[in-house]
Structures are given as C-alpha cells and as structure tokens.
C-alpha cells in the first residue's frame, strides 16, 4: 500500500518535472516536450495500474491549479482547451503502455517500444483527435491532419521511452515494477 502510494506520487511529480525541461524544436517548427515521454514511462516502468494512477494524480494536480503542464499551463482552463482529449487519453495511454510491458514477455526494449507506440500514439491520438475536433469545430480527418504535426516528435519519444525502460531494467532489474 505504502509502496503503491509512494510510486504513484513520485511519478506524478516526475511527469511534472519533465514538463519543466525546455522544449526541443523539431526542424519544421513543432516543439516537442518531455512531458508525454513521462506519461509513457509511467506505464512502461510502473506497469498498467500504478502508471495510470500516477498520470491521474498528475492531472488532478493540474486541475486544482498547479501550472505543471509543459509551458507552465494548468488549472481548469486546459480542460476546456483543444488538448482536452489528449489529457483525458493520458492515463489510458499509460495503462495500455504498461499492460503491453507487463503481459508481453518480449525483450523489455521491444515491449516498451510497442507499448509506447500503442499507448502513447494509437490510444492517445484516439482520444486526442476527437477532442480537438470537438473544441475546434473540425471534422475528424481535419483534426487528424492538425494532430499529425506531433507524430514525428512522439515517435522519437517512444524510442526514448524504450531506451530508458531498458536502461532501468539493466541497471536495477528489481526496480522495474512493470516486470516484477
């Protein structure tokens, strides 16, 4: 019980801290931040249930008014903005990423990469795009076009999530809760 609570709290803090890391701007001008990498890592490192809870706690902190989303955004306003679908999809994305690493006994890097792509891209976009369509008054294909600018950055993050998860598995095998 204490360990679940402490891991959930510490990883919620980690997602926030990753949002403080300055954004890297891709060649075609789209900023990518480490924050959604934090979402994927919650799943691949902590596993489905704890990972999703950590992300939910993070969203709760944002909702109660802490400026923890990348770029110092926060408060209830972000849930009325175009990113609302992505925010709602975050915990589901972490859950799916964690589930893949937990259930699929492939080498940890491969499982984490697949989990991140499935959770952090497929599932996350499935929530994010309709949200964007609704708030911006666009059709789903139009919103998909708008969301695609984030795809290259998100693919890079999936690769990083896989590398980091593998790194933890090598350095501290017992610490990878998704595989223990």
């Amino acid at each position, binding site marked *: 019980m204490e360990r679940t609570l402490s*891991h959930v*709290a*510490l990883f919620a803090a980690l997602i926030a801290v990753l949002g403080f890391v300055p954004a890297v701007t891709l060649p075609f001008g789209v900023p990518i931040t480490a924050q959604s990498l934090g979402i994927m890592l919650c799943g691949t490192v902590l596993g489905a249930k704890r990972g999703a809870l950590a992300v939910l706690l993070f969203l709760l902190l944002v909702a109660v008014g802490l400026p923890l989303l990348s770029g110092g955004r926060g408060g*209830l306003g972000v849930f009325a903005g175009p990113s609302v679908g992505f925010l709602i999809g975050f915990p589901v994305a972490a859950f799916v990423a964690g589930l893949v690493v937990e259930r699929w006994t492939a080498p940890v890097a491969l499982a984490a990469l697949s989990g991140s792509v499935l959770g952090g891209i497929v599932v996350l976009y499935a929530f994010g795009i309709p949200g964007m369509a609704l708030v911006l008054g666009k059709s789903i294909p139009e919103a998909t076009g708008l969301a695609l600018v984030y795809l290259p950055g998100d693919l890079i993050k999936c690769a990083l999530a896989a590398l980091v998860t593998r790194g*933890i598995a090598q350095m501290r095998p017992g610490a990878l809760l998704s595989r223990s």
Partner: protein
Amino acid sequence: MLTLTSPVETPLHRLPAGAKLAGLCLATVVLFRLDSPVPLGACLAMLAVLHLALGLRFASTALRLLVPLWPFVLVIAFWHLWLGEPAAGATILLRLVTAVAAANLVTMTTRLSDMVTVIEKIAAPLRRIGLSPRSLALAIALAIRFLPVLSQRMGQISEALRARSPRRAGYRVLIPACLAALDDAEHVAEALRARGGAG
C-alpha cells in the same frame, strides 16, 4: 508552491469552491450549445467586464493565461478565412477563448486547499473500490513535496553529466532521473511505514 491562484483577493475567492465548479460546468455546457458569434461574443464581453471589475492586475494575469492558445487561434483564423466562413471561425474561437477563460477564472479565485477538499468529497464514493480520500490527499501532498526535490535532482544529474562530458546532458538525464524517482519512492514508502503506514 507556486499555484495559479491569484494573490489578489477578490470577492470570488470567498465563494465556496463547489459552487464555482458547478457554475463552471453549467457555463461550459451553455457555451457549447450556443453556435453563433453574437451570443458567444456577448458571453466573452461579460466575462471580460467581470475580470476588469476585479482589477486591472487581475485581468492582465488572466489574459496572460490565454497566451498558450495562440497557435490554435492562428490555425482556425486562417482556415476559416481561407474557406470564406468568418462567422463559423468566429464562433469556434469565441467559444474556445470564453470556455478557457471561464475555467481559468475559477482556478484563479480558488485556493489549492479548497480545491483539494472538493476533490476529496468528489472522490469519497471511490472508497468502495479501495481508494480512500485520505490516501488521495496524502498522494497529492507527497507529489507536491517531491516536485522541487526531483527538479533539483534533475539539475544535479545534468551537472554531473556535463562535468564529465563536453556535450549537453540531453536525454541521458532520463535514466538517472527515473532511478532517482524510484529510489525516492522506496524511501518515502519506508518513511510512511515508520510513521504508521498509509492505511
């Protein structure tokens, strides 16, 4: 901890948090029902007047919170001007800005502790699936406590990396940062147990 709650005391600060949240839900539903620029513009104008009545400093802080919306505003504006539907574009933009500003207003006028109390109340039924409001409050406190700790740790890690490498620390901070979070989690679990556990 830096929060988005405005340090400028306004009469809205004294309203109960639950009432403000309920009002916000209602307002958002109404905003998404309206679909022409005139009523939406009137809503935004009313909201702007309310902000100004609460003080110029308060209003300018609120305006700054809307800045991150600019890329979307730009895309929608160009999109609808290109299609020759300025009214449709204006509807979307007015609704977006008004809904976000209304939500920000609640955030700016509600203290963190009041917000957490409301959340504990909302989460009370979750007790049945094993999530007690007390552990939720504990988790919120722990996360806030460890934000500056992890942030500082991240800085130390990237300094340690740069001290031994000419390159920027970049993504290489991620593994030690995750390990630091995992280690801290074990220490916190132990400190919790030392003081009677989280049950």
